[in-house]
């Protein structure tokens, strides 16, 4: 069914259709509508879940971890400072190998208080052991949330998964999208089969004192699961394509085949870059685009073009653009642009301009300092 709705309402709807048994969440702009919408579903009796009105995001993540460890599917949603407050428990979920799923609405970090989008909040969680998806449309928010459950709960993976999308640009913007019937979602996403549980018949002690070697083994197995996730994400994305007509992989390539320069970016910026690519092509420039759907696992194998123009809406102070630096181990010519920090608008015109700048062998903070 085609619906027209905002990113936040779509995230809440996707969560509802995944039938989590426990939801724990705390409001923060620009995610707030997600928690409100879920409260509405629960109170109207449309969603059969225990909704825990926690007193903080730290408790939200903790409650999801504990509920997942007790054997049920869980959901939470947050943004920015809420995600940062969860940081300790994000590691806890990862190391516990619990497939908690959440959405994060990208928002800048204070001070000063800035509610507009950049990706520093989620990218600064990239080492916590979470699979990270980014959406560049409301359709992708929906599709990613459902697939995230199937991937995270895969018995070869058992890792938590986060779906991020830009605050306001997607969270508060209505777009048309296709929402499959609940019966089709149920057929796609089977009931949760936990990897381990707190079971009084078979008592286990989870997370007690551990010596270095078995701890390192745990880390190693996480890394293997992340690597394996590349394959599973691909497979689940193909299955989604067969069932719903929209195939997914680790990245979305657009007009890359004969391209001289390929943009690499993600989230809402990638939607803007797509327009820029079309315009550039109209002008006779051979431009292409890679939209990163996942950042963890990082889709190295899919980034195989020369002259990649990497646009980061994020910054690791003292290092540079995070995605650009993650890609640096690849042996291709690359250009780095830092743009749109703190929600500064980046239009397709700006992206076309970056294309020209890269051709002139220039890069940097757009438009502050490009050389």
């Amino acid at each position: 069914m085609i619906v027209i709705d905002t990113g936040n309402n779509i995230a809440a709807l996707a969560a509802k259709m995944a039938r989590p048994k426990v939801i724990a969440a705390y409001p923060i702009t620009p995610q707030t509508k997600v928690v409100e919408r879920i409260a509405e579903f629960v109170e109207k009796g449309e969603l059969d879940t225990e909704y825990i009105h926690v007193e903080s995001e730290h408790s939200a993540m903790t409650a999801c971890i504990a509920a997942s460890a007790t054997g049920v599917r869980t959901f939470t949603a947050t943004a920015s400072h809420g995600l940062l407050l969860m940081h300790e428990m994000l590691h806890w979920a990862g190391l516990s190998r619990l497939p908690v799923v959440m959405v994060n609405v990208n928002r800048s970090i204070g001070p000063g208080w800035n509610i507009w989008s950049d990706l520093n909040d989620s990218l600064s969680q990239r080492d916590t052991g979470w699979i990270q998806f980014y959406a560049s449309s409301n359709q992708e928010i929906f599709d990613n949330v459902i697939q995230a459950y199937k991937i995270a709960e895969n018995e070869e993976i058992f890792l938590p998964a986060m779906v991020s999308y830009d605050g306001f640009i997607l969270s508060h913007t209505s777009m048309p999208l296709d929402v499959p019937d609940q019966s089709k979602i149920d057929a796609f996403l089977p009931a949760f089969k936990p990897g381990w549980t707190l079971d009084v018949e078979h008592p286990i002690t989870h997370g007690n004192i551990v010596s270095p070697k078995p701890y390192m083994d745990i880390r190693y197995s996480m890394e293997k699961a992340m690597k394996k996730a590349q394959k599973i994400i691909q497979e689940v994305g193909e299955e989604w394509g067969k069932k719903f007509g929209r195939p997914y992989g680790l990245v979305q390539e657009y007009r890359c085949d004969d391209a001289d320069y390929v943009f690499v970016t993600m989230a809402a910026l990638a939607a803007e870059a797509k327009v820029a690519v079309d315009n550039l092509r109209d002008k006779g420039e051979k431009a292409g685009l890679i939209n990163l759907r996942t950042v963890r696992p990082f889709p190295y194998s899919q980034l195989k073009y020369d002259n990649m123009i990497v646009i980061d809406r994020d910054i690791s102070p003292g290092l540079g653009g995070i995605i650009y630096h993650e890609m640096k181990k690849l042996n291709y010519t690359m250009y780095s642009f830092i743009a749109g920090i703190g929600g500064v608008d980046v239009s397709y015109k700006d992206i076309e301009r970056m294309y020209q700048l890269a051709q002139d062998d220039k890069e940097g903070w757009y438009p502050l300092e490009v050389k």
Partner: protein
Amino acid sequence: MAIKDLPRDEYLLKGHAACPGCPITVALRIALKALGNKTILVIPACCSSVIQALYPKSGFNVPILNIAFEAAAAGASGVSAALKKLDKTDITPVVWAGDGGSYDIGIQALSGALERGTNFIYICYNNQMYSNTGIQRSGATPYGAWTTTTWTGKKEHQKELGEIVRAHHIPYVATATISYPEDLYAKVLKAKNMKGPRYIEIFAPCPPGWRFDMSKTIEMARLAVETGAWILYEEIDGQFAFTSYSKKILEGRDRKPIEEWLQLQGRFRHLTEDDMKKINSHLDEKWNQYKKS
């Protein structure tokens, strides 16, 4: 119930790693006898997270979710919600936390879980300091006590977490200690047979932390009650009553001089006359308040 009639079941097995004379193991052993095997423990960082023994072994024979220091009550909220959805409400989620994880870093999650009416039991064993990290002050450390962060003695009195918890108007609040095991057992059992948020605080004298001989743990708990330094009470649905020995003091029996308890502990060795006055007047004030209410 007499101590010889306590259930024979043991959920705290041999091979745990607590210090000799540890109060936690005494308290937990009795508490688990009351709770039984249909219990899921949530344990934040504290001595109890260390003494379970080394992975992959465990000296505890009920399922345990170890969780971050400040997160125990939120963890129990998640377990409780999941159990409800799984129709397993015969299983009791129980937090087992130290005073640091309860009075200080975990008070937000605790208050939140109580206010939400979470169906769980929160047990705080109070050894009046952070022992896991090597004897630092906590919000439960009493005035004058030496710790490694209060070298000349703590300058503030402890807060009363029990009173803060009571302000949440939950079905059950109680205090207990290991020298009155029947009282402790009865309270945990009572809590187990109720629903909603239930809070029990167990006074737990720690030999290395308080600087007394490990053979004196139980005696130290008994003296704390006899001198009035620790008070045993119970509040069921708003009905507040002293229990056990504390009730006798309230009804007229003499409180032993607090000095009898203090002088056995190395952590109070340096106390001056002035300190003693402060401690005594604080104690009198507390008792007078209870007598009035």
